């Protein structure tokens, strides 16, 4: 019976709280000036969905001995000649937002190992983080594709994949992280009924690489061979931020142009098109004068021919029509006619 009373009491309190919570906006509204609009702005967090391995393994491999990796079909590939050999690692964007990849690396050493920007004659290792963005149609597979892991092993073992890899060099051990921004741009995925499809550039490979002496010496010049107790742990922290595509643009070679009615009555302006990350091309150029009665402009190519008409100023712009039908207009060149 006593329990029932408590329940009733609780529900009464709850009803009171609800009533108050609904009443508050009304009270607030009463203080707002008439004929006004309150616009509430809130931050909408962009979900970051990137698969990043929590651990990885590497070897200090003084002689670059082959490290064999077995794929799901029992075929093998070898990583050869790498003095720091990392097992395949990748980051995979699994979200619908294109992402910039930033990273920092901190290295803690074990044994007699030290870290430097170049390999020493002693056990000083130069370590770098390499991030290689992929752009390959074969990687545009479904999220549940069984062949993706093998494809990534092949890509990881292929030296060509690392040709344009971005690098973060570790400058010292046990100190603040060395970092770099925009090491890669990960393309967004395309959702489907179940799971999603990776785009050809949703994935980037990463590894530790570096240099070291095969037969190190101590400070007295005596041999100080590598020991099994030598090693290091590198902590890589990736930071993902939404990528802002660089849009197509048109720029003019001049911001101002002076003409007169006598010796300098004509001039030219040249436009330069930058596709940015749009992948578009230009199908045509059009030149416009804001005041054709002051200065006229003619042209259908990257060159606009400007002619003095009368004294005054006019803004000349160039508009490029792009391969998708859209247009992009330059900022103005101010033509002063004296």
């Amino acid at each position, binding site marked *: 019976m006593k329990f029932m009373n408590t329940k009733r009491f609780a529900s009464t309190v709850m009803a009171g709280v609800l009533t108050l919570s609904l009443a508050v906006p009304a009270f607030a509204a009463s203080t707002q000036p008439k004929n006004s609009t309150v616009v509430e702005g809130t931050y909408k*967090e962009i979900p*970051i969905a*990137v698969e*990043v*391995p*929590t*651990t*990885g*393994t*590497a*070897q*200090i*491999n*003084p*002689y*670059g*001995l*082959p490290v*064999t990796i077995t794929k799901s079909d029992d075929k*093998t590939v070898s990583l*050869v*000649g*790498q*003095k*720091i*050999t*990392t097992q395949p*690692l990748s*980051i995979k964007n699994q979200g619908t937002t294109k992402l910039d990849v930033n990273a920092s690396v901190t290295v803690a050493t074990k*044994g007699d190992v030290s870290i430097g920007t170049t390999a020493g004659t002693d056990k000083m290792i130069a370590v770098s983080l390499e991030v290689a963005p992929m752009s390959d149609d074969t990687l545009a597979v479904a999220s549940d594709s069984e062949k993706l892991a093998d494809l990534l092993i092949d890509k990881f073992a292929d*030296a060509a994949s690392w040709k344009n890899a971005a690098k973060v060099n570790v400058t010292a051990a046990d100190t603040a992280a060395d970092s770099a921004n925009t090491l890669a741009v990960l393309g967004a995925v395309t959702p489907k009924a179940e799971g999603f499809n990776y785009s050809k550039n949703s994935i980037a490979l*990463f590894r*530790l690489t570096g240099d070291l002496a*095969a037969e190190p010496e101590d400070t007295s010049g005596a041999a100080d*061979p*590598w*020991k*099994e*107790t*030598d*090693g*290091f*742990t*590198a*902590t*890589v*922290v*990736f*930071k*993902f*931020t939404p990528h802002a595509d660089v849009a197509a643009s048109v720029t003019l070679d001049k911001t101002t142009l002076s003409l007169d009615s006598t010796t300098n009555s004509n001039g030219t302006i040249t436009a330069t098109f930058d596709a940015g990350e749009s992948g578009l091309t230009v199908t045509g150029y059009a030149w416009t004068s804001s005041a054709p009665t002051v200065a006229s402009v003619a042209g259908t190519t990257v060159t606009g021919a400007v002619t003095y008409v009368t004294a005054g100023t006019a803004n000349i712009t160039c508009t490029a029509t792009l391969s998708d039908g859209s247009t992009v207009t330059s900022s103005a060149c101010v033509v002063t006619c004296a």
Partner: protein
Amino acid sequence: MKRKVLSSALAVLILLCFTQPAAALLLPNQRGTAITAIARLPIISVSVPASADVLINPFQFPVEIDGESRRDQIVCTDAVMSSYSDVPLSVGVQVTGAVKEGSDMTLAATPTNKAGTAKEAFVYFEIVQSNYEEVRRSLWAEAYDPTKHIVVTEGESPARTDMLTLEPLNKYGEVAKGGHAQFRLAGDAVRKPESEWNQKDGIDVMIAFTFTPVSYVS
């Protein structure tokens, strides 16, 4: 039931306690990877015969060695080394020669061509890379070559590095082609010296091998 709920809650709480510090270090848009690197040391293992016999045979009598009859002036038993290493090995050699005590022979620095009056023997060391675990006579050089061979001299220890590179074990863990090397002492001797050859004549040769790993190049 109450106990089960309590213990489950406790387990979740403990789990949270452990995961929280790591997660707390990263912002919502950060992810971390810890890469552990350990040193990989090469396996250097080469089987090398501990001893071999060399016979000075000035008159080129037939000599039975390893079931084969030979008529060389310097006859050496077959010797093959094999690499069981996982890294290519550059082979360096140092040869130290000494005439046996009581002998009045000397070691010549150049081939005797069997002629002369001094009791001299010209002995050189030869090593050849091979695919076989037994000696193939066809692999030996037909004559002494100063660019490839080391002359055995009294009281000196000439050495040469990088005479050949032994290949590492193949992917099946077997000695690879080029993982063997056959070596020998060869040469010639003055056939009829003024002081005749006798039982006291002979040489002791110490051959010391150095194996240096060769780095793979990507």
